[in-house]
């Protein structure tokens, strides 16, 4: 069967790799391309670049980083943050991205999902969802790094996005992002059960056990890791070893 994917997620601000804590504070961690190359060599299955300040400046500035990375990193690259139109998507895909991740622009105009899927294929159209649990136990979708409410129920939203042609869901828990306390497994399971397209769980991984949990209980198809990687707490070898020990199929590197 298909292996569970281990994905390195890099949040970029200008030329710097940064790390956010609960989507609020930012710390500069290093050079994104250098890190991407290192993660590729360490066995990452895919890379995600998120432009952390795109919504502030109204554009996506990752074209150069993506272009440099694509020259020597030969695994799928997803780019998100500030993708507002098929033109934005085209620019990024041409510069080396294989997929674009869209959040805010899709919330504002859901037909954008269909437009990107039609022009570039569903496999290139990843819906990025930031989910925060409300008092009633349901999850609401947010934008702008968990700052802006949308009023959308996450489960309804992902179903609709799939119908419109999204090929994957990149699911981030606003509550768990940067905490290293584990994923919101109930959230991931609910979303994974609501759609038939792959779900990438993001936000909260602190130990390899968290990964095992979100795959086994959360039914995630892929796991995006940021914090643990960037601060050198955990490596891909650790994650693969733990997965294998738990009987989870992962790529043999």
């Amino acid at each position, binding site marked *: 069967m298909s292996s569970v994917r281990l994905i390195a997620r890099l949040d970029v601000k200008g030329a710097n790799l940064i790390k956010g804590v609960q989507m609020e504070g930012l710390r500069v961690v290093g050079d994104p391309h250098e890190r991407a190359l290192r993660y590729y060599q360490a066995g990452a299955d895919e890379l995600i670049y998120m432009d952390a300040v795109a919504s502030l400046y109204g554009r996506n500035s990752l074209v150069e980083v993506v272009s440099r990375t694509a020259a020597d990193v*030969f695994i799928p690259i997803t780019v998100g943050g500030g993708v507002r139109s098929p033109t934005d998507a085209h620019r990024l895909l041409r510069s080396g991205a294989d997929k674009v991740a869209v959040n805010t622009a899709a919330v504002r105009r859901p037909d954008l999902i269909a437009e990107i899927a039609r022009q570039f294929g569903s496999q290139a159209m990843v819906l990025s969802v930031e989910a925060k649990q409300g008092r009633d136990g349901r999850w609401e979708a947010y934008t702008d790094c968990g700052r802006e409410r949308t009023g959308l129920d996450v489960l309804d939203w992902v179903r609709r996005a799939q119908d419109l042609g999204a090929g994957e869901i990149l699911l981030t828990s606003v509550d768990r992002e940067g905490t290293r306390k584990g994923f919101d497994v109930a959230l991931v399971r609910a979303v994974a059960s609501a759609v038939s397209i792959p779900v990438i769980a993001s936000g909260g991984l602190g130990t390899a056990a968290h990964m095992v949990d979100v795959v086994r209980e959360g039914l995630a198809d892929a796991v995006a890791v940021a914090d643990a990687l960037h601060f050198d707490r955990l490596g891909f070898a650790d994650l693969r070893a733990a997965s294998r020990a738990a009987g989870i199929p992962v790529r043999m590197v």
Partner: protein
Amino acid sequence: MRDVVVVDYGLGNLLSVARALVHVGGTPRITEDAEAVATADRLLLPGVGTFADGMNGLRARGLTEAVRAFAATGRPLLGICLGMQMFMEKGKEFGQHEGLGLLAGTVVAVPPTGTDGRRHRIPHIGWNEISAPDGGPLPGPLFTGLGARPALYFVHSFMAVTDDPERTIATCDYHGWPIAAAVGCGNLYGCQFHPEKSGPAGLRILENFLAL
């Protein structure tokens, strides 16, 4: 000389393929010119998208005959993903469509459930191990230098089924369903996976193709 013409028919991210070819010492030329395609030393047909769009893209540029003419020369031809699927006679994505007819076979949907009846993800996305259908080593020259079961990157919702099983030279398993991972006949090869996105293993496959 490791020249390779990469067919541009309007679909897919050609630059990824070109970058990977350069990385392994190739000299790719991206073109939609039928003459260049028909007379290439080596031809690569990439592709991401639907069968119908792919065939329409080729037809609109007068490239279907050019690719067929090239294939008839016996010089090396590699199809990737949709490129491989278009080698078949027909495709069943959104209706029935005619392919290039370089190999007898059909393109059909990847079944939405595993053989145990449980729904699985469509598209089939991710790294999957490929192996030779008879369980032996993967055949050279395309797979020279790789282990018995290398993992490669797949992303597709449709799959090629060759009429002659001998033409399917590698398969992968998707919850019980064997999927044609690679096809081959003479110097014609196809990969359902993306060698340009499959790390060192994929790069080795491209390198082997360039050595043909």
